[in-house]
């Protein structure tokens, strides 16, 4: 019995062993099925996943294209420097980390402030610079302690530098960190998004912005094998970056410098154009700013200083601000009168010192008037009464139509953005501009002061220079441009930005010659004679004084008026008068009479451009001081 039980026991045990064997085989079959699924059925998928793990495409930032002036002087350049960067998402306590870093690397309060500003503007998984331009010693000190700072890295980056600082800053513009809005815009275009994968910076203003596509270059890529920690193990393949194209400007930086210095610390704008091509020779807006401040992200202190200054240095006065042209409008009015046949050159008016329209008296600048005035004299002595009556004779529609043809009231199309249209007054404009019906109506009395460049007239200095250049080129209008050539970075091929004749304004040569003669006499005997005393070349010019505030019933006295309420001083000119190489317009804000403060600037610019004469360090006279 006992024996049998043992036998039974063994046989039952063996059955259990058999069951266990079946169980083991089932379980292992399950594993085999899983292996076949992963390694055979889904092989392609997992192979791709493994490759994706292993291979990382690292963008190589292209060298940004250089900008040089017409003489080859470098205006923007790149340099490589080390930056200390933090990826905020990987750092637990930012402030503590920065404090610890400060022991190794010099970190100023302004660096902290700028970092805070960047932090507010960006996403936390981006790597943000804390300190730029580390010294070799600082780099070495950090590297030795690197293990203590996860999420903090030293990166070699290319930086943009503007070696001339504040000189020509408005036309060059600057680059800055790509912001959210720009990022979205870039991401809309897939190709562009790929090309910006390695870029933190983008052109924000001036040429840097408008020629962004040329300057940026093509991002290269390096295929890198990376380990699980994201560290590069070895390079597999490399497509080098193609540097951005070089821009050669029409601008002569020396001329620009002389023009800027001629302003001294006065505010204003100057635009000089080559009449035969539309090439811009100088584009001045004063005051200027240092574009280098923006490259690494501007710190709040400097930003506030620029933004809150009453002088508004960031304002591009040459192309954005619109001013009444004052008497510089008169030659164009005269040309309009001749072209439309509304008044002949020989017609004479009598100027008693005022012009009556209805029951309103429009005063002439000169008390007692200029006596008998024909068209030539009206320009040379800048007679207001002549133009009051001319405007009245022509009527607003004819004036608006003619001035519109010369480009007044529309953008010139210069190759940087930020241009405004100004205001070419007309009944149609007024209707659009105002909401109230009584304001929408054009009154004939409003036409009168249009004739002397006042009233609703409001143009950019760019437009004024553009119209002057068109006049100098006998009515052939070229699109103004700052860039002369784009040099391909790879091939070295020069692509010329061809002078683009926009149109030829239908003018008679004899009319143009007449205006030219009158303008020459302005600088010989007229309002501009003092500034141009003894010039060895002929200059056609016209002074202008634009009223900022109307002073009812008072005699305008420059000394008595608050500086900011003084008139703007203007001057337009082209020279040599019979073979114009340069046409320009200049405005000095609150400069008083054009002949006093604007004309001497033009003289210095022309002397340099035509004679190569560099001014003798004499400080330009201060506004209102004689």
């Amino acid at each position, binding site marked *: 019995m*006992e024996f049998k*039980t*043992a036998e039974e*026991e*063994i046989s*039952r*045990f*063996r059955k*259990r*062993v058999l069951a*266990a*064997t079946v169980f*083991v*085989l089932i*379980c*292992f079959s*399950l*594993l*085999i099925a*899983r*292996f*076949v699924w*992963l*390694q*055979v059925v*889904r*092989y392609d*998928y*997992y*192979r791709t*996943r*493994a*490759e994706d*793990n*292993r291979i990382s495409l690292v963008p190589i930032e292209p060298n940004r294209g250089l900008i040089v002036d017409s003489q080859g002087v470098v205006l923007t350049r790149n340099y490589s420097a080390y930056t200390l960067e933090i990826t905020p998402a990987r750092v637990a306590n930012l402030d503590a980390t920065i404090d610890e870093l400060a022991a190794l690397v010099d970190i100023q309060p302004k660096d902290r402030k700028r970092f805070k500003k960047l932090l507010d503007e960006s996403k936390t998984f981006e790597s943000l610079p804390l300190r730029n331009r580390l010294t070799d010693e600082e780099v070495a000190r950090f590297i030795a302690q690197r293990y203590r700072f996860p999420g903090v890295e030293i990166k070699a980056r290319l930086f943009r530098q503007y070696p001339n600082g504040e000189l020509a800053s408005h036309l060059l513009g600057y680059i800055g960190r790509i912001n959210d809005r720009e990022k979205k815009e870039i991401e809309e275009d897939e190709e562009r998004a790929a090309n910006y994968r390695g870029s933190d910076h983008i052109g924000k203003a001036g040429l840097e912005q408008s020629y962004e596509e040329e300057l940026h270059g093509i991002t290269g890529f390096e295929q890198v*094998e*990376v*380990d*699980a*920690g994201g560290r590069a*193990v070895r390079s597999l393949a490399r497509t080098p970056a193609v540097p951005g194209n070089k821009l050669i400007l029409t601008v002569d930086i020396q001329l620009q410098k002389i023009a800027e210095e001629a302003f001294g610390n006065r505010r204003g704008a100057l635009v000089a154009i080559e009449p035969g091509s539309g090439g811009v020779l100088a584009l001045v807006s004063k005051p200027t700013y240092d574009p280098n401040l923006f490259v690494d992200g501007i710190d709040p202190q400097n930003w506030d200083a620029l933004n809150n200054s009453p002088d508004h240095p960031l304002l591009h006065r040459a192309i954005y601000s619109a001013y009444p042209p004052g008497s510089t409008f008169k030659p164009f009015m005269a040309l309009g009168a001749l072209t439309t046949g509304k008044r002949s050159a020989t017609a004479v008016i009598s100027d008693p010192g005022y012009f009556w329209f209805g029951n309103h008296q429009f005063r002439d600048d000169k008390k007692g008037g200029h006596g008998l005035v024909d068209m030539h004299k009206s320009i040379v002595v800048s007679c207001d009464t002549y133009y009051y009556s001319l405007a009245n004779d022509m009527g607003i529609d004819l004036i608006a139509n003619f001035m519109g043809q010369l480009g007044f009231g529309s953008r010139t199309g210069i190759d940087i953005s930020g241009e405004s249209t100004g205001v070419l007054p007309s009944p149609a404009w007024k209707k659009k501009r105002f909401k109230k019906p009584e304001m929408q109506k054009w009154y004939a009395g409003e036409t009168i002061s249009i004739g002397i460049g006042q009233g609703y007239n409001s143009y950019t200095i760019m437009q004024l220079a553009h119209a002057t250049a068109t006049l100098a080129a006998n009515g052939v209008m070229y699109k103004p441009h700052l860039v002369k050539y784009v040099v391909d970075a790879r091939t070295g091929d020069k692509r010329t930005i061809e002078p683009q004749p926009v149109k030829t304004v239908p003018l008679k040569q004899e009319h143009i010659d007449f205006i030219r003669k009158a303008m020459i006499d302005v600088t010989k005997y007229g309002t501009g004679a003092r500034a141009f005393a003894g010039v060895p070349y002929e200059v056609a010019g016209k002074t202008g004084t634009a009223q900022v505030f109307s002073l009812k019933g008072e005699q305008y006295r420059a000394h008595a008026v608050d500086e900011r309420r003084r008139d703007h001083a203007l001057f337009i000119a082209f020279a040599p008068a019979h073979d114009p190489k340069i046409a320009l317009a200049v405005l000095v804000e609150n400069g008083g009479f054009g002949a006093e403060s604007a004309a001497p600037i033009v003289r210095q610019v022309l002397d340099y451009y035509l004679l190569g004469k560099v001014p003798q360090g004499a400080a330009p006279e201060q506004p209102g001081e004689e």
Partner: protein
Amino acid sequence: MLGRLYKRIAAPIDPFLFALVALLLAFACFVQLSASPDRIQAQLMNTLIGLLVMWIAASIPPQRLQHLAVPLYVLGVLLLIAVALFGDSAKGAKRWLNLKVMRIQPSELLKIGMPLMLAWYFQQREGLLKARDFFAAIVLLAVPVGLIAKQPDLGTAILVLSGGLFIIFFAGLSWKLIAPVIIAGIIGVAAIVSAQDQICAPEVRWPGMRDYQKHRICTLLAPASDPLGKGFHTIQSSIAIGSGGSFGKGWRNGTQTQLEFIPERHTDFVFAVISEELGLIGNLGLLIAYILVIGRGLIIAANATSVFSRLLAGALSLSFFTYAFVNMGMVSGILPVVGVPLPLISYGGTALVTLCLGLGILMSIAHNRTFLQS
């Protein structure tokens, strides 16, 4: 003289099992040379110690082993209690006991001690077996398993629990009791899989489980839900296995391995290294070797002469299976990630010594059957 020495050494060794073990250990060195070449010296040292332990265990007859069952079990449980009271914490778990001279992990002791104890118990009850004996066995099993799970060390708890359950199964627990447990288990797993969205919600707490254990199960169900966190292990090891394909990328050429995408690639996840570098062929070869080891163990069990030997041999064989299945299952993403090494391959001296001890006991049982018969 030399011949006699050889006979003396070879006498307790089961040639077939030894050949398999030697093959697997050599394979382990081969794999470790790729996964973690720096550790190869330690690996060789562990291998030698393991073989020595195996030989010693093989030399001890099962009858003498029986006497160790109760003291070993009692000592193990006492040490587990000591760990719970005075143990060292590491990574949120209390598993080690610091004895000044050395730190020990008492749960490891139970991997052998538990089957030994239960085999001894059923040996005592030979011929008198009643239902309440199974109940007593379950209590004996539950105490250390509960203590280990509480540490928490899910991997070891599973190994100890399965070791004990195998004894109970081989001792003849009625199918009527086994079947409902298996069915309940299948239903439970099915329920978890189908209701994962609800039960894996972060605010839901699972009774009797730590949060990290719940996460392991949840990430197994949906590893993509947390690709850089808790799902990282499973995703990366699946990629390693899948990208290995049929023939593998070649020894030392696995990108997932060499570029450190596989976590714990020399210990618990070493199977991913094998899969990636040696492919499906390598996996099948390893599986066959394991089946042969388990099969040999079960044959030894079937032929064993006493209840104690039989049960012990059966349980040890199936424990070996548990190691292999749980490890490969978790690495290939069909089981949750628990700390169970790949038997004889994973780097780590303790596990290797424990496994060799078990294999040595199997050899001893095989040897003593023939010894008794002759």
